[in-house]
């Protein structure tokens, strides 16, 4: 087990180093950063001043080493635009994104797991097919359009929920629903297939032979065995939701990490762009590491792979 964790942790570290490189290379795609920051109207002298001020006159290798060494110490540099510490800016925005992600995950699990269980119990019937079709329909929904539609219906026509911002907790409901759509199909499929396998196994037959009620069999015996992989995939889905919340944060004007990234991209604030990319990637890596460990704790066969 320790061996397994050590190997996974090493891979996670290697992935982080790769993302450090990619995020650095990404912001150098435009060729001349100083020129991009100064804008098309700036004179050559202004561009030179900016180049010096932001340390862009140093060789690329030096810039890269500086970025890696300070990032590993938790220092992500300063925003070109706000002259504030980027790490502090991200931390200030994190609660919004995290609350949104967890709301989305909560809605997704509360919808997907019961539906997955019902589909598995009625495997092969119309009900099963119908439920799995819902998953396909959910997958096809463009998130930003769904967000705008919900704003029109529940915010404007019915007036039930706020249409933007998170001054109250109700502000998280609509964006949470939209975000949950991205995780529901995967969670539902996994719950269903896990339950189908569990329900077909010997211990369920034994439980049935003992005369246990159907409810007890499904909830106590089958679900317990199907649950762990679902919990593990939930961690991964949370990672996808956190890094994918940028579109939804923009639609609902939620000032989270994704919104910060989008704002930085549209205003050429490169230190913020590369840091947000790095931050979201690291969060994802940690969540998948957690999922790996959960799976390995449950299934010893995985540890030897």
């Amino acid at each position, binding site marked *: 087990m320790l061996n397994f964790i050590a190997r996974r942790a090493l891979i996670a570290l290697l992935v982080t180093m790769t993302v450090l490189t990619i995020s650095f290379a990404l912001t150098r*795609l435009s060729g001349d950063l100083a020129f991009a920051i100064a804008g098309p109207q700036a004179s050559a002298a202004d561009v030179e001043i900016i180049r010096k001020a932001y340390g862009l006159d140093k060789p690329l290798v030096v810039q890269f080493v500086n970025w890696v060494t300070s990032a590993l110490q938790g220092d992500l540099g300063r925003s070109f635009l706000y002259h504030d510490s980027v790490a502090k800016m991200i931390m200030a925005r994190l609660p919004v994104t995290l609350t949104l992600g967890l709301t989305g995950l909560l809605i997704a699990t509360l919808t997907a797991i019961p539906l997955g269980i019902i589909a598995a119990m009625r495997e092969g*019937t119309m009900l099963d*097919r119908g439920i799995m079709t819902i998953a396909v329909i959910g997958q096809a929904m*463009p998130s930003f359009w769904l967000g705008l539609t919900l704003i*029109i219906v529940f915010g404007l026509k019915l007036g039930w929920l706020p249409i933007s911002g998170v001054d109250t907790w109700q502000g998280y409901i609509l964006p949470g629903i939209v975000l949950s759509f991205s995780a529901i199909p995967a969670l539902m499929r996994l719950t269903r297939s896990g339950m189908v396998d569990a329900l077909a196994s010997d211990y369920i037959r034994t439980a049935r032979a003992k005369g246990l009620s159907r409810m007890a069999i499904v909830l106590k015996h089958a679900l317990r065995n199907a649950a762990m992989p679902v919990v593990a995939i939930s961690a991964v889905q949370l990672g996808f939701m956190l890094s994918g919340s*940028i579109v939804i944060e923009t639609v609902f004007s939620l000032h989270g990490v*994704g919104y910060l*990234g989008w704002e930085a991209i549209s205003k050429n604030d490169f230190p913020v762009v590369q840091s*947000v990319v790095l931050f979201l990637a690291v969060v994802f890596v940690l969540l998948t590491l957690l999922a790996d460990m959960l799976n390995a704790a449950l299934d010893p066969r995985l540890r030897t792979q």
Partner: protein
Amino acid sequence: MRLPSIRMLAAGLGTGIVVVVLLAGIFAPWITPYDPFAHNLDARMIPPSFMEGGRPANFLGTDHIGRDYFSRLIYGARISMLIGLATVVTSGLIGITLGVMGGFFGGRVDDVVMFAITCRLSIPLILVALAVVSLVGSSLSVVVLTLGLLLWDRFAVVARTTTMQVRNLDYVAAAWAAGCSRFHILTREVLPNIAHHLVVVATLEMALAILLEAALSFLGLGVPPPLPSWGLMIAEAKEYMFFSPWIIMVPGISLFTLVLGINFMGDGLRDMLGATRDV
């Protein structure tokens, strides 16, 4: 297969939708009644002809600068299909190459491929795509290339696992025994026998690419205006949606229908070709 009818119906419906959108895109210049770029400030925000205040000349109404919405929608179909197909070709080439190599050679090669997949998955997709398009400059080809370079992971995962299954089968052993070259075995024995799995992945990825292009265009960093991308149409209509909700419904429902159609078609193909369920 106790109830094949529903699945067949959905697959047929999906294929029908995809064919209609594809034909609309190809024959856009002949179908559209107006130039999709021509604005007419005297005819702004006219609702669709079947709604109150609509007029028969503009079937789906006009947008905020008086461009015919139906004509823009049809040209938008062209952009969605183009992006979807071109992205799948790009990402398919990358992903299938990587996946087949990893699955076929195993060992160190496979470790590298797995590492590449892990890295790709940890990178925030939309954020990186937005950053690339913003830095390189937005154009149709930049969007295709960016999405193509990002969406190869599922191709790689499926190509890798299916290649591993095929690698040890008898006909591959027979080809080895017959003295076939490695290249011959990869292209003539392995690829044709995993192709049906990859076709299903291609439909999923095409749907995803179309959704992502729309999202990028919606955020203002995808297809550049005045091109009529459905995502861009929704972005431009956003500020008018409170008074005229139809203006975001027309491109939104089109987008949803097309993506749903592709997914239904993919499910149908999966059943028909007996492809793997776990993608």
